[in-house]
Each structure stands twice: as C-alpha cells, then as structure tokens.
C-alpha cells in the first residue's frame, strides 16, 4: 500500500494540471446540462437566437473535449511509467507490477470515475430524483464507461511510448473501422448486429485486460510477457515497464 500511495502522490503532483482540466470540463458539462433543462424550449432563456447558438456550440465543444481530456490524462499517467523502451530509470527500481497496476487504477478512479460519479449524484438531485435510489444504476454506468472507454484507451497507452504514437494508433484503428464499415455497406447481407454483439464486446474487454496485464507483468512472475520481439519500440521490458 505504501508503494501504491507513493506512486499515486507522485502522479498527482505531476498530473495535477491534466486532472484539473478534466474536472473543470466535467463541471462545465454538468453546468451546461443543468442550464439546458432550465431553458428547454425557451429561446429567450439563452438571450435570444445568438445565445442559443453559442450555448449549443459551447456544450457541444465541452462534450467533445471531455473524453479527449480523459484520454489525454489516462495516456499521460500510464505512459509516465512507459512500458515501451529500455532506458526508463524506474525499470531497475523495486516497483512491483501489481502495485503499479493498482496505482494506475486508483489514479483513474480518483481523477475520472469519482468526479463523474459525484457529478451524476448532483445532477440527479438537481433534477429532483433522490440519488440514493439510483446508486446501483450509477455504479453500473461507471463500470460501462470504464470498460468501453477507459480500458481501450489504457490498453493503447500501455503499448505506445508517447501521445503521438497513441494518436497514430487511434488513427489507424479509425481508418480500419471506416474500411470495415465501407466493406459492410458493399455486402449488405453482412451484419455486425445481433446476439454476437455482446460476445464481441466481452472479447474486446478481455483482450484489453489481458494486454495490460501481460504488458505490465514481469517475466519472472509467470509465463508469457511482451517479449523482446515486443511492442512498437522493438524492445521489451520483461517486467512491468511503464517513464515517470
């Protein structure tokens, strides 16, 4: 626990700006939401058409920036102890992979999940619903966001060495998806919808989790690691390799 907290304090000290931006965007998102309910159907509430347009633009911008800020924060904190490369000072320090993994999870929970959960509580209360009645639903939402949004980003961050590499990887995935979509439109009988969806989602989540654990886990702790043939850099760390 001491090691987890030590790394956590370090990460918080280093990424407080990124964390603050992410929380500020979350607050702005919630504030826009509340303002949206108040002025629903009432153009005058926004100070006329111009006001409505700027409100819509602003809320659209915040809604787009929020996941980007989260992604940036996740990538920065994971690549802080980069898994790719062999020169990071920390790879020859007594880091324990389980504690390192736990610290990254803790950091994401504290800087992303927890503020989002608190905001959901406040929004529910503002909307007149008792939040305590919806705790399970809210936690389920957190789990879904973690699995569908945070986990894939974290997976990409573990196998890339920098934000630039990460962006390139995302672009590659987007291009691939566009290609698949184009293919699907050419062959109308093919379909990705149906009962197979949940299997695919489970597979995606399991793959992401496995990639992170395999990447972080050291060689001497069981079979299978990101071996020398390794990731993007051409080298691997047999141990957990995330650079501060």
């Amino acid at each position, binding site marked *: 626990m001491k090691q987890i907290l030590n790394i956590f304090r370090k990460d918080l000290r280093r990424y407080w700006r990124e964390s603050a931006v992410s929380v500020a965007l979350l607050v702005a998102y919630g504030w826009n939401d509340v303002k949206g309910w108040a002025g629903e159907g009432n153009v005058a509430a926004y100070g006329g058409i111009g006001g409505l347009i700027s409100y819509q633009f602003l809320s659209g911008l915040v809604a787009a920036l929020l996941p980007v800020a989260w992604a940036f924060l996740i990538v920065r904190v994971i690549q802080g102890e980069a898994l790719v490369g*062999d*020169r990071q000072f920390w*790879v020859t*320090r007594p*880091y324990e992979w389980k504690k390192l993994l736990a610290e990254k999870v803790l950091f994401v929970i504290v800087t992303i999940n927890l503020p989002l959960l608190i905001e959901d509580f406040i929004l529910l209360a503002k909307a007149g619903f008792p939040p305590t009645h919806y705790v399970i639903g809210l936690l389920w939402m957190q789990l879904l966001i973690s699995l569908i949004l945070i986990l894939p980003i974290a997976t990409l961050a573990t196998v890339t060495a920098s934000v630039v590499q990460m962006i390139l990887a995302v672009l590659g995935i987007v291009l691939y998806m566009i290609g698949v979509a184009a293919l699907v439109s050419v062959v109308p009988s093919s379909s990705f919808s149906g009962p197979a969806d949940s299997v695919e989602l489970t597979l995606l989540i399991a793959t992401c989790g496995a990639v992170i654990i395999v990447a972080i886990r050291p060689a*001497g702790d069981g079979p299978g690691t990101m071996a020398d043939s390794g990731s993007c850099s051409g080298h691997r*760390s*047999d141990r957990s390799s995330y650079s501060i």
Partner: protein
Amino acid sequence: MIPFRVYFRPGVSLYEQVAYAAKKAMVSRQMRPGDPFPSVRVLSRELRINPNTAHKVVTHLLAAGLLEARPGIGTVVAELPESRKIERTQLLGHEIEQLAVEAKKLGIPLEEVVTSISEHWRKLGGRETGGPEAERGGRRKTMSVVRTENLVKTFWRVEALNGLNLDVLEGAVYALVGPNGAGKTTAIKILMNIFGPTSGRAEVLGVESARVVGRTFTSIGYVSENQELPDWMRVGTFLDYLRPFYPSWDRALEDRLIRQFDLPRERKLGNLSRGMRMKAALAGSLAYHPKLIVLDEPFTGLDPLVRDELIQGLLEQAEESTIFVLSHDLAEIESFASHVGYLEQGRLRFSEELEKLVERFREVQVTLDGSPRLPETAPESWMQLSSSPVVVRFIESRFEPERTKAEIRGVFGEVRDVTFSPMTLREIFLAMAKVGRNAA
C-alpha cells in the same frame, strides 16, 4: 610512473591516503633513501588528484623529514637517522591509541591485535606482497554476485552475445571493457532483466536474471549514461520519491552524498548538467547500501573533477558492495578496479585480477646485432610483432621474466639487449582490440 600504488579507500581524504602509501613504500624499502620522489606534477597526473592535494602530500612528507629537497636533483627520499625513529614512534602514539580503542570496542583480544600487526609487519618486510585485495582489507570472498553461463543474445540476425561466461565475485570492483558493439551493454541489460537472453543463464545475487524484479532491486544500484531520469522532478523530490521503495535507505548517507556531490536539492533534474545528473542518479542508487552497484559507462563525457567525485563516492561504498562497471575510460578504471574482463564480439577474451593482468603484459623491445628478420612462428603470447633496422618489438601477453627471455633466445638466438616495459590498461586494451580487429 610513480614508485608506489594507491588504492583509494572511502572515508579518508585523498591527501592522507597518498601520503600513507608513500610512507608505506618508504618503510617497506620499496623506495630507498636517495631515490627520487615524484614531482607534484607527476603525482597529480599519475594519481589523477588535484595538484593542490599532490602539493600538500609533498609538503607533509618534507615536513615529516621523510623527503628532502636537493638542489639540481629535486625531491628525494630522506635518510632516516636514529633520532627520527623515536620521533616517529611518538608520532604513532595517536594511531596506536585509536587502534586500541577500536579493538576494545570490537572485543578483539590483544593477542589477536598483535598477531594481526605482526602479519602486516611481515608483509611490509617484503616476504609477502599485498595486491589490491589486500589493500582493500582482504575483501576477496568466494560468492558469485554476477554469473553468466553460455549467455547468448541475438537481435534478429545480429549476435550481440556469443556464449558469455562471466563470474564476478563478491567484493570485487569488476570492470568489463571492450570496443563499441562488443555486447557490454547487452550483457548488463540481460542481468538487469531489461532484455531476456536468447539462450544460456544469467544470475544476479543468486537470482536468475528473469526473476530480477521488484524487491531484488532493493539490493541493486543501477546507473547508466543513457538512463532517462524524471526530468520534471527536483533533486530533493527525486530522492524523496525513491526513499519509500528501499527499506535500507540511509537518510544520513543520502545527506552526505548530497553534500559530497554538491547537488542542489531544489534544482530540477532536467536543468542539471550531464555530470550533475549522473551524480544525482548515483546518489539515488547508493543511499540504500546496495549489495551490487551496476554502472554502464558512468564516466563518459564527464570532466575530470566530476569523475573524481563520482569515483570517490563509489569507493566509499566499495567496502560493502560489489561494483560491476562498463567503461571506456580505462585510465579511471585502472585507478579503482580490482578485476577486469575484456569483451569482444560477444565473447569474453579474458577476465582476471587487474594486478595480474598488468603483470603479465609487457611491451618488449629486442635489440639485435644485425638486421632482424621476423620469425615465421612466434610464441602465441606474442602480439603485434614488428621490426625496424635493428630492433624487434612486440607485446608479450604471458610475461614471466625468465621464461620470456628464454623464448626470445629460442627465436632470435643471442641478442644485444632486451627491455620489458610495463603497460597501462589502456595500452593493453588497445593491443587486444587491434589483435581482435586484425583477426576479424
């Protein structure tokens, strides 16, 4: 060359150590009355110490009557009259008192102390010689701290290590040298489990290299010239951050290292010079008393003053750690290594005590009566055979005076003159590298 050797030890000032080594050479008759004593300049250059320190040594020895300045000749070892012996005995009063206090504190009986002194006395009398190990207080032990067996590492089709067998004993200061691309860094990265081996075995502190993770690193200090440090951290924050990882972290030692290396706690690592960064990395790797200190080219590109400081810092740990160092800086290595290994094309060409290595290499110059003809077959231990009008030169890699002379007579018959010159580690390294290159 200076007529005595100094193996710098921690905790004592350089000046005292050099003065002590000089006195030791005098009392053991290695230097006799009338022998010239090296000048300040020579002392400074050969021992790589500050000229002021060298000056202080000479002044001290002059003041103690152990040296005398002779006009036109320079400083020579003084004749020691009887009266001086009494004064010297009186001068030892403090040291003897200290010895008695330490012995009592450790519970060593008087007989053992006397036996130990007698032994040292005998050694100085020339019946036994003390090599670097003896100088380091008999640190030689038998446990392997680093061991590799047939270690092979290939990167695609490039063979970086080709059956490396290495054995570094506990307490040694082992220097692994070799030309660029010899596989030194690869070897260290396998030992540190940064890479896995293609085949073979590697062990560090009795742990297989693949299992060198987590807590094992609390006993290992690793510093590399290429290491990426957290540049955003201040020196103080960096050390504060590392401290909780190490149960044996010594706060007093950390403070001492900070003072010794003159490290600014408030300065960001990214704003430090290269030398200061190395010092910060070293401070962060020494403060927990590691059993093994691994250094990858720690002196490259550093100015002499910083090198001295780094070496001094290291030597202060040498008593309790094994040091494994990769370096091209052979002059520095020679000043503090006890063992040396030469790696070439992924293979270890030799691995032995530095003292023995330096003993077995000689630059030989044979002067003949007529024009020399290079022999078609020469002993295998002769390297870089060359000739000029009446002289043949070569490097003997298995020097033993009588045997080598006999071999020379066997090859050239009677010769006019033969000289054997000692070689520095750098010269030995260059000779080996050239032979390796020619063979390739």
